[in-house]
């Protein structure tokens, strides 16, 4: 259950520091106000600055990282019932009206977290960022050094986000490349976060170049995702899967609404024959939720897709976009589905992001929306406590505010037990570097041994202690046999040992946080060779941050546009 792409592949190394947060500062030379990267390095805390006039510089903030982090976290120790706003930190967000990059105060108010912004052109605005201030503040304790790709796709010239992507100042490699292979679709989803033009299918040769680039940049990838549009609309989708089926790529995932799967069994069988994985959008189980999220009643189509996936035992991930007041009451049901079917390996909740052709204009209240802790709370309430808030942890692979997750160990009797019930993630953080599944890596091997010893020693105190040990023994036997495992085989074996539930909150114009973008690990590789962090691309390049026809930043570059060395690249106001 480890992100094999986050592990040191030959030649790939961890960053020399742990990226922690953004903080406002001044250039030591010209005094200009700039936003710096606060990193933990050795035992100290350093702010890394990039002044557009004077270039890079550093400022030591503390010689005692442990004490500095403790003080930082203590700023968030505010009782829920204490009146007023309490400044926790500052960052850079966007004006929801003009999309300009805007300083934002991160404030705690009534147990929740809000951005307070003031755009010089449009005036003040506020947005809810987290429904649980404690969860939000605690997430910073999970900060962990990222991993460098073998090479970056862009030089550092003008700073984040202008240099995307990704530049040498980006703090995480590409854990998950999401390739938009078409901008055709067979639905018009009210929550769509892209901006389909019905004009492009990627050429196989171009796609092959992207795959080559990813392998050159990363060495190996745990997964590569084919998205769109609706990727099954691509007339040569199977050829694309064949191209991506390389030894260096653990799994090829097709992110789909499932319509074609349900009506075209031969196509589903072809996916199965190629060893492809399916990430099925499944946002509900009733006509009304489908209509609100996807534009029409899809109950029959989704059932048909689920049937063929089960019949063919195609490894499946479910994607549930959760929106306040729309489908949050069906969260428990999708968890039940995950736990009831062996071929469903993971579940990804995505609290709705209000960006894109549909999402940009989707009815919403930026002060009352679902965020990660809200979805987790719903999971707890709707699974009768089988899963609890405490079973979930922020994922330090990405920025810890972007993704949370839980792993569920399959016990010998077929039940699933959250890892957090027997793993102390403050000690065994390497298990959280991951994406979808445990990987057979040396680091995971060592960590599993420590976990096993911990459970072994406390087996009389931990519920299901002996069963956990049997399950871990099974996992060790198959994940670390006395023979070498290939990347694909290791991924496949690992994913059978535990299921996972991820919560990934993509950003929009309300809650955009440049600090989070800095460590984004879900990237859109572009036809021009750039590797674009997903939310940066959605905000500044796609041209749909507020719905269709949103102006693109002057330095922005739309999808499907070829490389142009003369394109202007400079930080400026968007809109």
């Amino acid at each position: 259950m480890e992100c094999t792409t986050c592990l040191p592949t030959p030649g790939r190394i961890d960053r020399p520091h742990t990226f922690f947060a953004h903080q406002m500062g001044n250039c030591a030379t010209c005094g200009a106000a700039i936003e710096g990267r606060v990193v933990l390095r050795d035992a100290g805390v350093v702010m890394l600055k990039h002044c557009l006039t004077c270039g890079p510089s550093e400022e030591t903030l503390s010689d005692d990282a442990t004490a500095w982090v403790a003080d930082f976290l203590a700023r968030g120790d505010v009782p829920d019932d204490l009146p007023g706003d309490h400044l926790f930190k500052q960052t850079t967000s966007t004006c929801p009206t003009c999309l300009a990059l805007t300083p934002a105060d991160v404030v705690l108010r009534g147990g929740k977290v809000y951005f307070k912004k003031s755009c010089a052109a449009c005036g003040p605005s506020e947005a809810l960022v987290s429904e649980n201030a404690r969860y939000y503040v605690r997430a910073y304790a999970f900060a962990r050094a990222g991993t460098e790709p073998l090479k970056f796709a862009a030089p550092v010239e003008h700073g984040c986000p202008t240099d995307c992507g990704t530049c040498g100042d980006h703090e995480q490699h590409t854990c998950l490349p999401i390739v938009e292979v078409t901008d055709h679709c067979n639905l018009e989803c009210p929550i769509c976060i892209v901006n389909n033009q019905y004009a492009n299918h990627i050429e196989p040769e171009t796609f092959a170049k992207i795959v080559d680039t990813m392998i050159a940049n990363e060495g190996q990838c745990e997964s590569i995702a084919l998205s769109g549009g609706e990727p099954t609309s691509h007339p040569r989708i199977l050829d694309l899967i064949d191209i991506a089926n390389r030894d260096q790529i653990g799994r090829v995932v097709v992110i789909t609404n499932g319509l074609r799967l349900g009506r075209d069994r031969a196509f589903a069988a072809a996916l199965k024959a190629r060893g492809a994985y399916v990430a099925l959008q499944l946002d509900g189980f009733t006509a009304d939720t489908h209509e609100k999220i996807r534009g029409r009643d899809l109950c029959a189509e989704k059932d048909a897709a689920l049937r063929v996936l089960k019949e063919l035992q195609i490894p499946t991930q479910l994607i549930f976009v959760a929106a306040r007041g729309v489908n949050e009451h069906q969260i428990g049901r999708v968890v039940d589905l995950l736990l009831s079917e062996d071929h469903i390996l993971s579940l990804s909740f995505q609290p709705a992001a209000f960006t894109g052709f549909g999402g940009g204009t989707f009815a919403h209240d930026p002060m009352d929306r679902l965020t990660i802790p809200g979805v987790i709370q719903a999971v707890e309430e709707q699974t009768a406590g089988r899963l609890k808030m405490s079973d979930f942890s922020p994922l330090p692979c990405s920025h810890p505010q972007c993704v949370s997750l839980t792993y569920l160990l399959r016990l010998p009797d077929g039940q699933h037990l959250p890892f957090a019930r027997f793993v102390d993630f403050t000690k065994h953080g390497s298990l959280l570097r991951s994406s979808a599944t445990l990987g057979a890596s040396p680091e995971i091997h060592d960590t599993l041994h420590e976990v096993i010893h911990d459970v072994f020693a406390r087996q009389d105190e931990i519920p299901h202690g002996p069963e956990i040990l049997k399950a871990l023994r099974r996992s060790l036997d198959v994940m670390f046999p006395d023979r070498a495992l290939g990347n694909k085989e290791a991924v496949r074996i690992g994913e059978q040992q535990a299921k996972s539930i991820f919560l990934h909150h993509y950003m929009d114009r309300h809650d955009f946080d440049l600090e989070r973008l800095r460590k984004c690990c879900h990237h859109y590789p572009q036809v021009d060779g750039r590797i674009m962090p997903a939310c940066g691309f959605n905000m500044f390049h796609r041209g749909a941050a507020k719905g269709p026809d949103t102006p693109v930043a002057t330095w922005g570059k739309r999808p499907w546009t070829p490389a142009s060395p003369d394109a202007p690249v400079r930080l400026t106001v968007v809109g």
Partner: protein
Amino acid sequence: MGLLLEGRAALVTGATRGLGRAIARTLAREGADVAFNYTRSDDEAAALVEEIRGHGRRALPFKVSVLDKPAVLKMVQEIDKSWGQIDVLVNNAGVGQVVPLALMEEEDWDRMMSVNVKGAFLMSQAVLRPMIRARRGRIVNISSLAGVKMMQAPVHYSAAKAALRGFTEALAKEVGRYGITVNCLAPGILEEGVSVNLPPPKLDEYLRNCALGRVGTFAEIAEVVAFVAADRNSYMNGATVVLDGAV
């Protein structure tokens, strides 16, 4: 400096006779409460209890085979419950048998490996639970010179004692992160050990090749066990200490 094992709790296997008894006695003298197992004489066990108590220490005897896993687990749980800790395990229990390979029965081999190796495995696995919880511990395995040097010794005995050395090294690597050390002692011929059964020419040959010109004593080995098991011995891990007077 004070006693080596003041406030510690030790478990010694095969402790009612020979080297085991000397070890139990010495650990008690150095301040440890001593639990032990035995399989034969209740009288010898009672005498050892009195001896341990004579040092002002607590004693817990268990008539349990090291090959009886449920009984071993229960024994360890009782010690842990009674004393709240198990700091030291000495895997001393073992058997010897003089028989050439040509006459060795499969049962001989199995018995040798079981008592000398499997017993250490079961005992160590059992005590590791409280030791890992406590993030401390000392495991001392009693091997033999026959397990580390080429000697005229029975094949199964040498193999079993050599296995203990490998067991020691691997376990030391596995549990060192919890502050638990695992070491091994490899005594040469001792005054009342297998030397009793040695033909005089072989004993003479040993003595001729031993720099000290004599066999060792149980007490000498027990003194080293006490030190190896002590907190003062803090950086020795995965080691095999040969105690043979320089053969």
